[in-house]
């Protein structure tokens, strides 16, 4: 066991659910689960078969490139090294960016079959998020119906950087209805990869990835959250839980208070809402990663207090280069009681995705 695995007892003794664990699935591997002509496309193209951002994420050799390509990788490098008891795995974030909607639909079931076959069937304490292609909401709904009986599929992963129109639009209602019918809860996830193409034109003039990555996830999630509330999605689907991954938590109080103000003035533009935006947002779940790094740690504690221990879940984002170790969040939880700590480390995630721990 490495020194890094020998953590303080509070981490070792705590049950931890990790809501955001990314697999790195090679194109040739997912090709096995697709039909022709997509199988040949995925297996043989000389180009990257899925959209790629082109950024140098390894900082020209300054950062190690980690990948997770087997269930043993997840078990050893994440569960044992970081003391994660229940990782919630996702297989791809790129489907909503594919211009070829027929390919996206075919890959949707391919990634989900691969996730179940190669990962969830191997370890009972692994859970998974089904990847959805948002281009064809009716096909995504069919996929959720197909996966409804899979006990270890606990949520649907929807990439928020790319879908057009924004994800509160009524064209997605069929998708949300199927998710609610099948007790598969929603997890939204932004990305730096699509940000340069999908958002306003000024994005395209960012010259450094640090600019893109600071903005991309948060902006995507803010747009999604605004769209959900204004279209009344939480009122339409009251049994559905919504989790927001990988945008940190600093943006949440701002959205609560700004939407409260806007709603007071322009309630008639969001007539499905029955209470203040803040009250809906407090029923959503938000993953901690990337945890902010304030110069004054008391500011982070205040921020966690504002978001609330009923809403916060732990996420590592492993194996990506900006992942968080559980310690990064845990150090800020000392001011909360044991119940609050347990909510953040596993109970909220268990509630959000109806896990059977």
């Amino acid at each position: 066991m490495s020194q890094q695995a020998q953590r303080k007892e509070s981490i070792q003794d705590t049950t931890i659910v990790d809501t955001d664990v990314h697999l790195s699935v090679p194109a040739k591997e997912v090709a096995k689960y697709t039909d022709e002509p997509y199988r040949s496309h995925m297996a043989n193209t000389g180009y990257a078969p899925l959209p790629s951002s082109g950024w140098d994420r390894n900082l020209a050799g300054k950062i190690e490139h980690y990948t997770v390509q087997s269930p043993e990788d997840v078990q050893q490098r994440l569960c044992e090294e970081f003391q994660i008891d229940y990782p919630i795995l996702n297989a791809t974030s790129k489907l909503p960016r594919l211009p070829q909607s027929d390919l996206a639909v075919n890959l949707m079931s391919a990634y989900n079959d691969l996730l179940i076959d190669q990962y969830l069937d191997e370890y009972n304490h692994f859970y998974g998020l089904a990847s959805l292609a948002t281009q064809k909401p009716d096909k995504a709904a069919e996929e959720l119906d197909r996966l409804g009986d899979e006990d270890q599929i606990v949520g649907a992963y929807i990439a928020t950087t790319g879908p057009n129109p924004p994800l509160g639009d009524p064209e997605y209602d069929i998708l949300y209805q199927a998710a609610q019918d099948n007790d598969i809860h929603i997890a939204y996830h932004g990305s730096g990869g699509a940000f340069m193409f999908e958002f306003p034109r000024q994005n395209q003039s960012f010259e450094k990835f640090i600019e893109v990555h600071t903005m991309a996830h948060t902006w995507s999630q803010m747009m999604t959250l605004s769209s959900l509330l204004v279209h009344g999605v939480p009122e339409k689907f009251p049994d559905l839980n919504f989790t927001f991954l990988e945008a940190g938590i600093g943006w949440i109080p701002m959205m609560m208070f700004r939407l409260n103000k806007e709603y007071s003035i322009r309630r008639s533009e969001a007539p499905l809402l029955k209470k203040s935006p803040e009250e809906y947002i407090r029923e959503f779940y938000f993953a901690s990663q990337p945890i902010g790094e304030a110069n004054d740690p008391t500011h982070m504690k205040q921020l966690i207090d504002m978001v609330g221990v009923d809403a916060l879940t732990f996420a590592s984002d492993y194996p990506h280069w900006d992942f968080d170790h559980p310690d990064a969040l845990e150090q800020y939880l000392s001011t909360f009681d044991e119940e609050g700590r347990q909510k953040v480390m596993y109970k909220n995630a268990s509630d959000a995705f109806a896990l059977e721990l």
Partner: protein
Amino acid sequence: MTDHIVASVDELEEGGRIITQLNGREICVFNIDGEYYAYNNWCAHQAGPVCEGNITGTTEASFDPESLEVSLEYCHEGEILNCPWHGWEYEVKSGKCLSRQKVQLPSYPVRIEEEEIIVTL
């Protein structure tokens, strides 16, 4: 304070490093240009295995207010230790963090006696 023999000098070539367990801690000794440095293998950020990271250079910039031009320089090649987890940069000769002024890797005295590398802990 106790002396610990880590290795003989011919076991640690220039540019190399040795990670060893001393008193329950992972201590890494680097040989940079014939000088020896010892640090905890414990990053100040999220406690990653900092001493296992790549040693590279870094980029610095200067701004000339006369010409309004920024000059980039890739410098300190072989002198910057990057934590493999998140890329926090440290000067391998001083343990100083490049992005946080008050952050420094804990270091230990290293000396050579009779061709042996000795760390005092």
